[in-house]
């Protein structure tokens, strides 16, 4: 199967690889995995407490090219967005941008999950409660 040029670009030059201080209250960490392929993805955000804008986003992904490209693109997209705008990003947007084939759609789902998990963690730390988010987080345990 051939990867699209955009996937290859993100794979060769991944944006925003790295780590943020997990202990900081401004930082939210999302760790998600895809049991189907054994991929694991960590996505972190640093949110400005005044503006709720995501000022920094970092990721580290162990997985295939599509998983790396999906998380790289996700960090690019959420940077500069407010938390609520970042939650609007759908995995289908990632699929479209990267032209992912059907067997790789789960990589984009993983990236969307990672964004939600990171924002969820940040909200939990900062006492922002949203009924839907809380319910989703609870059902995950």
């Amino acid at each position, binding site marked *: 199967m051939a990867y699209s040029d955009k996937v290859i670009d993100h794979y060769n030059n991944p944006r925003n690889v790295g780590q943020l201080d997990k202990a900081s209250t401004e930082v939210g960490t999302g760790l998600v*995995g*895809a*049991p189907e392929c*054994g991929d694991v993805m960590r996505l972190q955000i640093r949110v400005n407490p005044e503006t709720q804008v995501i000022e920094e986003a970092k990721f580290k992904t162990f997985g295939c090219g599509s998983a790396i490209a999906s998380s790289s693109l996700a960090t690019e997209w959420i940077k500069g967005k407010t938390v609520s705008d970042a939650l609007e990003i759908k995995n289908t947007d990632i699929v479209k941008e990267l032209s992912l084939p059907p067997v790789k759609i*789960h990589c984009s*789902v993983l990236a969307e999950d990672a964004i939600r998990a990171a924002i969820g963690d940040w909200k939990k730390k900062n006492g922002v409660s949203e009924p839907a988010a809380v319910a*989703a987080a609870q059902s995950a345990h």
Partner: protein
Amino acid sequence: MLKVIDSAVPVACWACSVAHNDSTLFCPHCSKIQPPPESDYFQVLGLQRGFQVDLDALEREFHRLSRKVHPDRFARADENERQWSLADTALLNDAYRTLKDPLFRTEYLLKLEGAEIGEEHAGKDRKGQSDPSRVPADLLEEVFELNMQLEEMRMARSTGEIDSVLENGLVLAKKKFESLLAAVDLDLRTEWKAWDTGDAAARKTSEKSMVALLDRRRYLRNLVRDVTETLGA
């Protein structure tokens, strides 16, 4: 993709027109070879559908049928029969390989029973929503850490460094994940038994457990493979 066909639906033999159920490679009436049946692998090999399989019976039936459908025996038969002997042989080989291997068999039967497993189904359940309950959460943190260590190890290797602390840690991790893998296999066996002897409700529960165990197993298998590769490099 798998087609699950009701084997009770009879098909007429092309040669003698007598109806037979569509799981047989040879007409029970006139013994003529039949086109590849649409039935499942268990029916093709005359086995009861179940996760625990009598491997001796599987072996015997496979060899018996293989000899019967062997293309050499149809060298002078008409074109259709020649083609069918090839197709039947291919089907038989697929069926045998799938049912003989415990993991292939488990995945195959779960799919027959309608469970969604494998990469193509990932994250597509519940209308495209990913199902968080399927991620082995207890493993994630460990998997991530181990991957970090593996990367460090590869980097150290590439610069000719030998980090014995790191290496020992990986050897220990490998042992640990191997024993977790063995535990998963043991659990799978327990579920096989539960399914084979259980009623419909017990089977559904069992199928769910098996899908989760297979997910966990895939994770662990990849980890063991990666650690082994890195240590052996």
